[in-house]
Every structure is written in structure tokens, then in C-alpha cells.
């Protein structure tokens, strides 16, 4: 449940990386507000910090300064195992290279996040089948990733991302490895998830056509928002 109409608040966040005792700043005092149901695109050149910002929102990285509050929870306050649990419940990930486990079938890949829940076997199966049907792959359940095309793999990945009905969806260059047609299909899917299912989506992308499908675009350059 959103508070004050904000789903994600990034509050004066700074992040730098250490390399051989040199500090390289990546994000400088960034603040953004993402209302619930928003479809936000983060854009910018290489090294602008957009992926880092995405990682902070998703809870797989921590800022050096500032807060990240998602749906009322300051995730900086959470310890590591709590953060893991939080991610499992609240975040759906979509990666550029799909990141499916090659030894698991489409069904099993989608089922993976559910293994962290207490659902019964039947309940799990129902959720998985629903997710796969939603992304249009109801008939490819037993296939292994290497038997699927890039577009199909990404759809499995999206099914995995939504199977636990997470609070937010986080996508890192979701169409980066796809041809024009498949990219279009994926963006259609994301669009539908946003409009029909009211999912808040934050997406990093290079692709202007992908960015077009989002509601709003923010630009970063050298760790600062430029628009």
C-alpha cells in the first residue's frame, strides 16, 4: 500500500565504488519519486549510473548515503537475510540476458521464486501456469532455455518475475539482446503488465523505441539527473 502516493522514493542517494583505494563516484545526491503504477525509463550513456540506480531500488546494492524507501519500507534498514526475503516478496527482476537457469525447464525456472514461499504444490503449479499463460508460453512449459528463442526466453523470465505478484518490476535492458519483432512483443507485454495489472515498472534502457513505451523517462549523466 503506497504512502503519500509514492511507491519508490530515492532520497539524496550517493553511491561510489572503490577501485585500488580510489573512490569513483557513480551517483551524486540523487532524489526521485516514483508513484504507484508508474512506468519509468532510466536512460543515459554508459557509466551514467542508471544501472546502479536500478540496483539500489531493487535492493541488490546499498547506497553510501541517503535512503531508498519502497512501498513504505526503508530497505537500508534491513539486514542481509531480511533484504533477501524482502526482494523475494516485493521485486520482480528482468535481465538483459534473461538469466534463466539452463538446467531447469521453463516451468521450473518460473517456479523458482515460489520455492521461497509456503505455498502448496498445487498452488505453486497454478501460479506458474497462470504466469506462463499470461506471457503466452502455455505450451512450452517443459522446454529448456536452449530450446527457446531469445524472445521466448525473455518471456519466461518475465513470467518468473511476476509469478509471486511482486510490488515492483525492475528491468535492466530487457530488449537489449532481442531483434526488433521480439523486442516489440516484450514491450507489449510490459505495457500490459503496467496498464492491466497496475504494476510499477522501472526500466533501464538504451533503446529509444523501448523508452517510448514508458510513461516517463529520466536521463542520467555522470551520476546526476539531467532531466
Amino acid at each position, binding site marked *: 500500500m503506497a504512502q503519500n502516493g509514492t511507491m519508490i522514493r530515492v532520497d539524496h542517494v550517493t553511491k561510489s565504488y572503490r577501485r585500488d583505494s580510489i573512490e569513483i563516484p557513480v551517483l551524486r545526491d540523487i532524489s526521485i519519486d516514483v508513484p504507484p503504477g508508474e512506468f519509468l525509463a532510466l536512460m543515459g550513456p554508459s557509466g551514467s549510473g542508471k544501472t546502479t540506480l536500478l*540496483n539500489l531500488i*531493487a535492493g*541488490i*546494492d546499498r547506497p553510501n548515503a541517503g535512503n531508498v524507501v519502497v512501498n513504505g519500507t526503508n530497505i537500508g534498514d534491513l539486514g*542481509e*537475510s531480511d533484504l*533477501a*526475503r*524482502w*526482494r*523475494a*516478496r516485493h521485486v520482480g*527482476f528482468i*535481465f538483459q*540476458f534473461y*538469466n534463466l*537457469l*539452463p*538446467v*531447469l525447464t521453463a516451468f*521450473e525456472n518460473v517456479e*523458482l*521464486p515460489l*520455492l*521461497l514461499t509456503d505455498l502448496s504444490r498445487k498452488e505453486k503449479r497454478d501460479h506458474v501456469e497462470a504466469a506462463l499463460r499470461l506471457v503466452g508460453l502455455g505450451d512450452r512449459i517443459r522446454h529448456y532455455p536452449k530450446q527457446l528463442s531469445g524472445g521466448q526466453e525473455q518471456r519466461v523470465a518475465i513470467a*518468473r518475475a511476476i509469478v509471486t505478484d511482486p510490488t515492483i518490476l525492475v528491468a535492466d535492458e530487457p530488449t537489449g539482446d532481442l531483434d526488433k519483432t521480439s523486442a516489440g512483443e516484450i514491450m507489449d507485454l510490459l505495457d500490459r503488465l503496467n496498464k492491466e495489472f497496475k504494476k510499477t515498472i522501472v526500466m533501464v534502457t538504451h533503446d529509444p523505441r523501448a523508452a517510448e513505451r514508458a510513461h516517463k523517462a529520466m536521463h542520467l549523466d555522470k551520476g546526476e539527473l539531467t532531466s
Partner: protein
Amino acid sequence: MKIPLKYMWRSLWTRRLTTLLTLGGIALVVFVFAAVLMLSNGVQQTMVDTGADDNVIVLRRSANSELVSQIDRDAANLIRTDPGIATGPDGKPILSTEVVVIINLMRKDVDGMGNITVRGVSPEALVLRPQVKITQGQMFRTGSHEIIIGTSIAARYRGTGIGEQIRFGDAMWTVVGYFTAEGTGFESEIWGDVEQLMPAFGRPVFSSLTFKLRNAGDYEAVKTRIQADPRTQYTEMKREKVYYREQSQLMSDFIRVLGLIVTIIFSVGAVIGAMITMYAAVANRTVEIGTMRALGFRRRSVLGAFMIESVFLALLGGGTGVALASLMSFVRIATVNFSTFSELAFGFTLSPGIVISSLVFSLVMGFAGGFLPAVRAARMNILAALRSA
């Protein structure tokens, strides 16, 4: 374990060649480990089973084996009268006065000789040792120069055919039968009439006596009586089983110690093989590990997954090794027993304890090999792992 087992099993299967090579290494080590224990067990089994619970052997005090023991007739006659000794249907005490010597015979398989135990026995010997059965021919006649040969010796040595004659101790001895003894030490011996063998070997005294107790519990009472009499004070009594266990101790300890030293040293090699495999598996699946962590699986689940894979691999290898070792049960080895200095044939005996130790051993190897790589997998930083794609 939140991460499904099928993930681990299939990951092993995907890199089949490497998995099989590692499994092979562990199987080999466990095979040797189990075989050594089986051999040591086999020696003890053969020797210990040679003795019976209610039989007692009498030797000269502090003689380590029958070969160096001497018991004179007077002492033998005195012991014979003890009421604690069982009697046969004919009323005679079930006691065998025996003389033990070693002779050389030519081997069939290689150009060489072996030391064979020749045992002069009384007719009661067959009653004392019911496991001894004549399989071919017949028992030697008392008072004759006939001998019977244990089947293990008959198989390995020349000139032992039924009807053939062997020369030793200044006389010719005719082979009239073969006997088995349920795989115990007697099968590696030659038996003849003690009263004929003694003069032939110029031995005026016996090597030992063996008798059957009327009641197995009378042992201490009989021992006290015999020890008390000054004429038999120089003798020493032992339960037959205890005596034979001592006769095999040296041999079985030697085999076990040597075998275990060697096995443990090269088990380190197998563990290293497993470690290399697991490190490679971790390196290969860095992106997978990062993905699972991102999805919310905890570090300990990742640790557990890789440990389970490693242990599973090792148990599989260990099971294979034990299975192969169990085939050794069909093999019999004959060699010189360090304590009696004569030939003894024994086999590889598997026991539940050996199976369990072998599997535990492989478990330990799997644990040792998988631990460090699993820790590396668990400690991975999510971002670094995802970025490595």
C-alpha cells in the same frame, strides 16, 4: 533446502565428463580403502574361525606359535586325565596331541617353493574340528604313512595328487585324501598321524595339545588345575579362538596400517580432484548464483546446494568403489603368515562395517572437496556475479 535437488543433480549431469572423471577418482580411492579393510578382515576371519569356542590349545609357556612350542608325553598324559575335558562316545577324552613342522613344496604357478604346515594329529582331531571334511579320497589310517592335504595346498602345489607320494622326514608319505575346512587356516595344512610324524622328524615331544571342554564355562577351572600341578606348570593354555586371533594379529595389522596410510595419502589427491571440479562448477555458474541471490535465495542455500552436489558426487563415487571392492570377495590370496611363517590362504571379506566406513570416508572426501568452493559461491557479491555474464 530451498533450492531444488534436481538443480544440483542436473548441474552435475550437464558437465558429464568432468563429473565422471571426478567420480572415477573417488571410486578408485574408496575401492582400495575397502579392499584393504576387506583383506585385513579376511585374514582375521580365516584365522579366528579356525578356532572353536569350546576348544582349548595348550602350548609351552611364552611360545608364540606351535612351531617353537614343546610339550612332553608326561605332561600330555597328565592333562588328558583332567575331568574338565569332554569325552567321546567311546569314553576317551576328546584331545589331540599334535606336532607341527614346516616342509617345502614346489609351487604350481611359479618357479618357487612354499612353506607348508604339516600337522601330526590324533584320531580325535576330526571330532575336535567338525568344520574339517574329507572331500576326496579318505582319512589317513592311524599307524600308517598316509597323509591328507588341505584343498588350498592341493590346488597350489605340485606332487599333491591322490596316490602320489611326498618325501620328507626320512620316509615316503602317500596322499590318500583332500579336506576342506570352511575356508579356515587348516585348509592350508597337511595332516598325518602324530605318532608316525614325530619319529620321522626326530621330534620326541609334541608341539601342542588341543582338547574340547565339557562345558565352555569350565575354562578357568581347568586352567587353574593344570597350572597348579608342577609337572604341567611350564605349559600355557589358551582358548583356541584367542590363539588363532593372535596368530593373525601381526599380518592383519600390517595390512591394515600399510593400506590405510597409502589410501589416506592418495585420498588427498581425489579430494583435490573434487575441489577442482567444484571450483570450476562455481565459476561456470556465477551468473546463476547471482540470479538466485537476486531472486531472494540466501547465502546458506547456495552454500548448501554446492555442498550437496559435492557430497552427492562423492557418495556416488564411494558407492561405485564399494561395489567394485565387493567383487574382490571372489578372490583368494595365499601368502606367508608372518607369525607362523607358513602359507595361509585367505580371502577378502566384506562386512557391513566396512561398507559404512567406506561410505563415510567418501562423504568426508566430498565434504572436504566441496567446502571451500561452496564457501566461495556463497560469499559472492550479487552484483559482481550478475555482471560477470
